[in-house]
């Protein structure tokens, strides 16, 4: 029973493909790919719509007001209204803009975002695009985002756009390093770049109740936090939304975009957010595994999406809580704290591994991390680093 | 104990030297510590001198020398040493005691000076050198200290370097004494050549002992005279006396210490020290060298006394009196009264220092005024100074009974009276005594008696730190006389080593009356001449000197120091100028011409060779160079600096290789 529900979607896909039985192999291949893509788009565009409205409502709650509550029940149809509005808006392209690039940029960015979704396992046997170097694929494709952002900023031939793009690229570069390096310990411990394997490695339970998720090891925990923060930056969310800070540069690289292109950017950002959170869940939170054996009757994809939405909630929560960080502070943080800690995670993971992954390893890796952390916190005395700002040019 | 102090004699000069070194290294602001150091050093020296004095008391004619080897060249070593005998011990006591007084005095006198620290450094340095002179047991060592003393006096005379007159005086003193020292040096060399040693006492082998003296023979006279020349220079005897009055440019304590009490006495001391050289082969106490000494001394004594009468500067008067007193000592040495001379030297050390310090106190009180014409009536303002000064004056002018000067002078007269060669010196000296009394009276009258004139208006008594040494010295000047009375000539006995016994009868002698008469005559005449001087009051300076009124020409002659300076200026100095100019000319035109000539020859040669180079060798080289350059241009044409061109070349080369390969395959 549980099995069937768990494998519901898989079986559905098989059923659909069985219609094409007897046609040449590549047809079936293409068909299955198309089905995957369709499913991805369907699920995540819905999630995007849902997210957009939920975010507004949650923010409203946190800021002690009602969010959108006019369109539909509890304003649930708000995204539809937004979509229509976006669609029927005039699409303005600046006269001096580089038309072609200006057009390609949003397309590329959205495409990239969606591509990254492809390698994440959403459930048992539910990985749309199984590839040996899945994690690498994720990052390789994700890296293209920077180029896209740059294209957007450059093509719209506007100082705000250019500056925004610059900022975005700068911060993406700086945080891509911790992002990737925090993944390395997991890859090392599992010994594979394949998301499925990584998920599988976190299947067991210690003493039958505590799941063997990497987040529960010292290195894993730290790596998870670092990864999450870097993901926050990668998806330009508060408190790291410097590239599109309304108060400073109108909307960063999206300034000259309007109508549906703008919507596309927006969507791309959210989807990127989903992707990063999904990867985080996969790498550290045991993917689609249930937190306890007894709960395994509940289907795996549910668990995955529960974790995903939990992370997304944290995103929203942070956005409601934290103010925007200054650029120089952000860079300092990336290079002077995040990066060393990420490397420390690698070492700690190695220690953990060579101490038979048991309690001893646990303690030892904890020690390593604690030592480095204290050393760092002494070295970069924040009171000095983030001294009150001197306005050199603004007297 | 005696042996002990002998081993540590070297400490006596060493302590002040060390003190001066330390003081020199002090910053300019540490006045207090500087003075403290200097005085402490002096006290230590005094203590040492006392300790050194004791053994000489125990045995009559005590003499101990402590010799050591300085360095050896070949097989003969150069040996220096220290000697301790009554002469040295007495000098030590006198120098260290007077020195101490003067040190203390100068604390007050130099209080406002900005170079206070440096002053005390020099002072200690001087005292070290002087003590060294006294205890040296080797003519060489003595000479070394002698020169150090000269250096110290140079530094101290020119202490107020900002005054050109001071600098000039310092130079004058240095050069004049150098002239004398040259004689000294020559004598020393000659002596060494003859006797092979410069040690005075070297248990029988010293140059002042029978063995050494035997080797000298006839040359002793010349050696003695040469050394005496040095003494003349230091002690400001007749031809070389000119520097001493000018030396008064220095601070008064310096004048007191160096140019009255100690250094100028060094000449006399030197003669006394090497007396055996002078008296070698004497026929009833007369040798040619001693005769020279006598005449020089007499001339100096009389001349200086005469000049002193006509001087207006309080210090200059004292300076000339010093000169004449030194002359007196020389005379007594010359006529064989060594003990008398030394006794006078010691006594003179005390009272002349006293007088100088008194004049210093006066100058200090009159805010730097030195012209006695402008003073007067100071007795009311500075009683202590007046009292002590009067004592000094009495002692100097030789009032008998309870002033040391009286007895010593009497002894000298005594000695001179019996000089077999001629009676002239004796009478001249009598005149000198009268003159001494005269000018001292004059000075007293002008300075202390009568009404106060311009400079004396705001006069004030000096601080205790200055008056105390005065009293001490005054007491010394008086108490010393106890040791000098003919009734109990202890000091005489101590110096000569003869046994002494008390005999009241000897107190009364003809000579006593003679000196009494002379001194009273001098003082009386003085009082009579200057009875009206300085009696008028008001801010006007004194009316012209009575003597000048009487004998203007003579007075001017005296006032201008007998034009001796001018004489030198027009003879010796002019000559040296001329010779300097001559040698300059020689240098410039004659020798230089020669050198230039050789240079020209070299140049000619150079021109020739360069011609050869230009014409002959270079041409070939140039040709080759041109060829090379052409080739280089050819090459560098390909070197366009364009990367793309290079890359294209590479590509073409690759293409060529490719085609070749393909064609082969």
């Amino acid at each position, binding site marked *: 029973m549980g099995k069937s529900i768990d494998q519901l979607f898989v079986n559905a896909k098989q059923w659909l493909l069985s219609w094409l039985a007897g046609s040449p192999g590549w047809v079936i291949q293409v068909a299955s790919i198309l089905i995957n893509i369709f499913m991805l788009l369907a699920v995540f565009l819905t999630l995007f719509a849902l997210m957009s409205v939920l975010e507004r409502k949650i923010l409203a709650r946190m800021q002690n007001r009602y969010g959108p509550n006019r369109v539909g029940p509890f304003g649930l149809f708000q995204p539809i209204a937004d979509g229509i509005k976006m669609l029927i808006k005039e699409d303005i392209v600046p006269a001096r803009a580089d038309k072609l690039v200006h057009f390609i940029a949003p397309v590329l960015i959205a495409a990239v975002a969606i591509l990254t979704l492809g390698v994440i396992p959403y459930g048992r046997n539910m990985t749309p695009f199984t590839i040996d170097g899945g994690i690498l694929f994720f990052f390789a494709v994700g890296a293209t985002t920077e180029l896209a952002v740059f294209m957007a900023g450059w093509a719209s031939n506007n100082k705000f756009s250019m500056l925004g793009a610059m900022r975005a690229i700068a911060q993406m570069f700086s945080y891509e390093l911790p992002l990737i390096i925090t993944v390395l310990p997991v890859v090392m411990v599992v010994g594979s770049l394949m998301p499925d394997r990584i998920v599988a490695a976190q299947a067991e339970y210690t003493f039958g109740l505590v799941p063997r998720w990497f987040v529960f090891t010292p290195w894993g925990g730290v790596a998870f936090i670092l990864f999450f923060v870097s993901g926050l930056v990668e998806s330009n969310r508060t408190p790291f939304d410097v590239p599109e800070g309304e108060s400073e540069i109108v909307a960063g690289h999206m300034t000259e975009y309007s109508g549906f292109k703008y919507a596309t950017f927006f969507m791309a950002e959210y989807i990127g957010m989903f992707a990063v959170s999904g990867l985080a869940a996969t790498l550290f939170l045991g993917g689609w595994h249930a937190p306890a054996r007894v709960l395994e009757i509940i289907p795996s994809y549910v668990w995955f999406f529960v974790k995903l939405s939990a992370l997304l909630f944290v995103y929203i929560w942070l956005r409601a809580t934290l103010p925007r960080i200054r650029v120089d502070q952000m860079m300092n943080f990336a290079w002077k704290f995040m990066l060393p800690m990420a490397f420390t995670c690698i070492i700690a993971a190695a220690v953990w591994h060579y101490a038979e992954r048991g309690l001893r390893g646990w303690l030892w890796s904890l020690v390593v991390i604690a030592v480095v952390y204290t050393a760092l916190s002494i070295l970069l005395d924040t009171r000095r680093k983030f001294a009150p700002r001197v306005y050199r040019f603004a007297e | 104990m005696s042996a002990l102090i002998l081993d540590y004699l070297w400490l006596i000069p060493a302590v002040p030297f060390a003190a001066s070194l330390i003081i020199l290294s002090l910053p300019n602001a540490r006045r207090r510590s500087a003075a403290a150091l200097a005085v402490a050093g002096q006290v230590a020296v005094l203590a040492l001198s006392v300790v050194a004095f004791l053994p000489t008391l125990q045995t009559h004619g005590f003499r101990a020398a402590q010799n050591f080897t300085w360095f050896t060249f070949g097989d003969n070593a150069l040996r220096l040493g220290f000697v301790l005998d009554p002469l040295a011990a007495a000098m030590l006591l006198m120098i260290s005691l007077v020195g101490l007084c003067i040190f203390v005095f100068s604390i007050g006198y130099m209080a406002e000076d900005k170079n206070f620290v440096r002053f005390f450094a020099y002072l200690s340095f001087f005292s070290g050198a002087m003590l060294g002179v006294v205890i040296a047991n080797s003519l060489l060592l003595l000479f070394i200290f002698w020169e150090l003393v000269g250096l110290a006096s140079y530094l101290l005379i020119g202490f107020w370097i900002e005054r050109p007159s001071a600098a000039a005086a310092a130079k004058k003193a240095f050069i004049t004494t150098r002239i004398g020292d040259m004689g000294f040096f020559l004598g020393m060399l000659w002596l060494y050549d003859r006797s092979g040693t410069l040690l005075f006492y070297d248990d029988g082998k010293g140059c002042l002992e029978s063995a050494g003296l035997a080797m000298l023979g006839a040359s002793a006279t010349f050696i003695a005279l040469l050394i005496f020349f040095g003494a003349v220079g230091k002690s400001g005897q007749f031809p070389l006396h000119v520097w001493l009055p000018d030396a008064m440019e220095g601070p008064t304590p310096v004048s007191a210490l160096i140019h009255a009490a100690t250094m100028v006495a060094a000449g006399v001391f030197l003669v006394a020290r090497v007396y055996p050289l002078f008296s070698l082969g004497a026929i009833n106490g007369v040798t040619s060298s001693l005769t020279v000494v006598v005449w020089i001394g007499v001339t100096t004594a009389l001349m200086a006394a005469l000049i002193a009468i006509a001087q207006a500067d309080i210090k200059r008067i004292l300076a000339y009196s010093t000169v004449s007193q030194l002359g007196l000592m020389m005379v007594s040495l010359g006529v064989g009264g060594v003990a008398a001379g030394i006794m006078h030297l010691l006594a003179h050390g005390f009272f002349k220092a006293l007088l100088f310090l008194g004049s210093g106190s006066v100058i200090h009180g009159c805010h730097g005024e030195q012209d006695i014409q402008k003073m007067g009536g100071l007795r009311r303002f500075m009683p202590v100074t007046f009292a002590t000064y009067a004592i000094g004056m009495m002692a100097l002018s030789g009032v008998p009974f309870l002033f040391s000067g009286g007895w010593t002078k009497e002894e000298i007269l005594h000695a001179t009276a019996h000089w077999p060669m001629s009676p002239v010196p004796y009478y001249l000296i009598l005149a000198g005594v009268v003159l001494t009394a005269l000018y001292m009276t004059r000075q007293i009258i002008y300075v202390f008696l009568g009404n106060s004139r311009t400079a004396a208006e705001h006069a004030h008594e000096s601080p205790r730190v200055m008056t105390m040494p005065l009293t001490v010295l005054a007491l010394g000047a008086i108490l010393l006389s106890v040791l000098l009375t003919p009734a109990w000539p202890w000091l005489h006995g101590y110096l000569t080593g003869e046994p002494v016994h008390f005999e009241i009868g000897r107190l009364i002698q003809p000579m006593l009356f003679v000196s009494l008469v002379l001194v009273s005559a001098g003082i009386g005449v003085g009082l009579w001449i200057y009875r009206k001087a300085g009696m008028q009051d008001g801010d006007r300076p004194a009316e012209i000197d009575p003597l000048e009124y009487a004998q203007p020409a003579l007075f001017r002659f005296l006032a201008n120091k007998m034009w001796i300076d001018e004489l030198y200026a027009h003879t010796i100095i002019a000559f040296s100028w001329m010779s300097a100019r001559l040698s300059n000319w020689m240098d410039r035109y004659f020798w230089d011409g020669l050198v230039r000539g050789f240079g020209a020859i070299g140049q000619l040669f150079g021109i020739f060779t360069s011609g050869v180079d230009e014409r002959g060798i270079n041409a070939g080289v140039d040709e080759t160079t041109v060829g090379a350059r052409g080739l280089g241009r050819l*090459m560098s044409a*390909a*070197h366009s*600096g*364009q990367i*793309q061109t290079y*890359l294209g070349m590479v*590509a073409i080369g690759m293409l060529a290789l490719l085609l070749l390969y393909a064609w082969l395959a």
Partner: protein
Amino acid sequence: MTPTLQAFVAVSGALFSIGLLAALSRRHAIFILIGIELMLAAANLNFIAFWRFAPQPHQPTGVMLAIFSIAISAAEAAVGLAMVIAVYRHYHTTNVDQLDQLKG
């Protein structure tokens, strides 16, 4: 019907020529860099292709070579671009025709 090695090598040759074209004919320094990168890419393609078509050794030599060459060309790109910027700072131009200080 699958492409032969010849096809791959031909493509890489064409790629190489295009790189050479960029490097030789464009005057902007960055074009030269792009050209060089393209030529390196062609080389990489050759490595992989020959590895794929050759009888398999124990270790994937061609792939290794490709990986290393990629890393090195990345370094080369970084330094090259830095040099372009430095040159631009000095001469205020990136036109390689004007950069002929080394002219003999």
